[in-house]
């Protein structure tokens, strides 16, 4: 086990923290309602906001994790840690299949946002994992010691469109 999740997920009265940073528990109804409200109202601006907000939060959050677990030094173990955190946060399953400092391919077989979107709205016509794209961009920048915004992540296949898996392509900007 790379981490001690029971101590990473901590409470101080009404406040909840992961790795010392405040978190909230929200269900798929809220996450998907926010997603749809932003996308329907601002179109591409809303998509960008979902991506950038997830990227920034995962960048800061993952940095905090690595500061805490300073024995985790190799790229392989950092990628493993990222996938573990994603799963522990109830966000889904993610596989860093072929990644390196210049980018790569990441596959997700299931996720909170896919399950939530399909439960509430059914099949989409366009890829919809904006949160996951931003989350990946943030952790990749930390893992390869790059600044926030260094990577761009595109979704090439999406389970919200009834593909078998979500496939993300990571590229340098």
């Amino acid at each position, binding site marked *: 086990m790379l981490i001690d*999740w*029971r101590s990473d*997920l901590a*409470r101080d*009265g*009404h*406040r*909840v923290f*992961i790795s010392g*940073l*405040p*978190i*909230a*528990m*929200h*269900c*798929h*109804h*809220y*996450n998907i*309602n*926010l997603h*749809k*409200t*932003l996308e329907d*109202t*601002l179109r591409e*601006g*809303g998509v960008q*906001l*979902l991506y*950038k*907000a*997830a990227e*920034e*939060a995962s960048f*800061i*959050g993952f940095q905090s994790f690595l500061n805490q677990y300073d024995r985790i030094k190799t790229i392989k173990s950092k990628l493993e840690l990222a996938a573990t955190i*994603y*799963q*522990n*946060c*109830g*966000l*889904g*399953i993610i596989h860093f299949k072929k990644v390196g400092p210049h980018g790569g391919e990441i596959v997700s*077989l*299931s*996720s*909170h946002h896919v*399950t*939530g979107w399909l*439960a509430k709205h059914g099949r989409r016509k366009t890829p919809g994992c904006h949160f996951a794209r931003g989350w990946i961009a943030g952790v990749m920048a930390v893992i390869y010691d790059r600044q926030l915004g260094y990577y761009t992540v595109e979704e090439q296949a999406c389970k919200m469109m009834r593909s078998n898996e979500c496939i993300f392509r990571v590229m340098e900007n």
Partner: protein
Amino acid sequence: MAIDGIKIIHAVMEGSLIRDRKGIIPLFGVYLSLFFVQYYNRLSFDFEKKMGKGREDEAEALLIEAAQECGYATFHGIRNSWEWDEIVGPMIENKEDQILGFTAVAVAFGWGDLEVKELIAKEKLVIQVSDSYEATGYIKRHGSANSGKCYMLRGVAGAFMDLLYGDDYPDGLFAFSAEEPLCRVKGDPYCEFIAQRSSY
């Protein structure tokens, strides 16, 4: 029996450690995620900013509506879950106790230190929060404001009343609506939410 918030917090913390084989946390009848409040605050407050001047009211209404719909579906699911039956159900003595159960779950979720100050059956709910993550996040990132910024909690306060005194689910949504007359972003000592029957 009074609502035991500590017991509910314990159940949520333990339940949030359990994930299914898809990496999803099914708890209290919903799929739960754990993520940094910074993300949620940026979505709300940057959305408001991106809507631009003159559309602040529209942005506010959309965010509150999204939260109220969510709160209505979420707490309907929670109220009908086996966890509710097993953990909260035995603490419920009358209909109004459900609101105390809902707020205890919201506290457990890390939304703030919600405290029910007044509840008049079918009419009015007053909730005070001295540490809402929305107000804390707004102050940290943007400083003060002239109007309340706790859109999620405002929607949720309305949803609590919808579930108790609105028509049967799913027809009771928006029977109530909440105002936030006091908010820490305006310099008030706490945020206050007052839910009453909708005027429309």
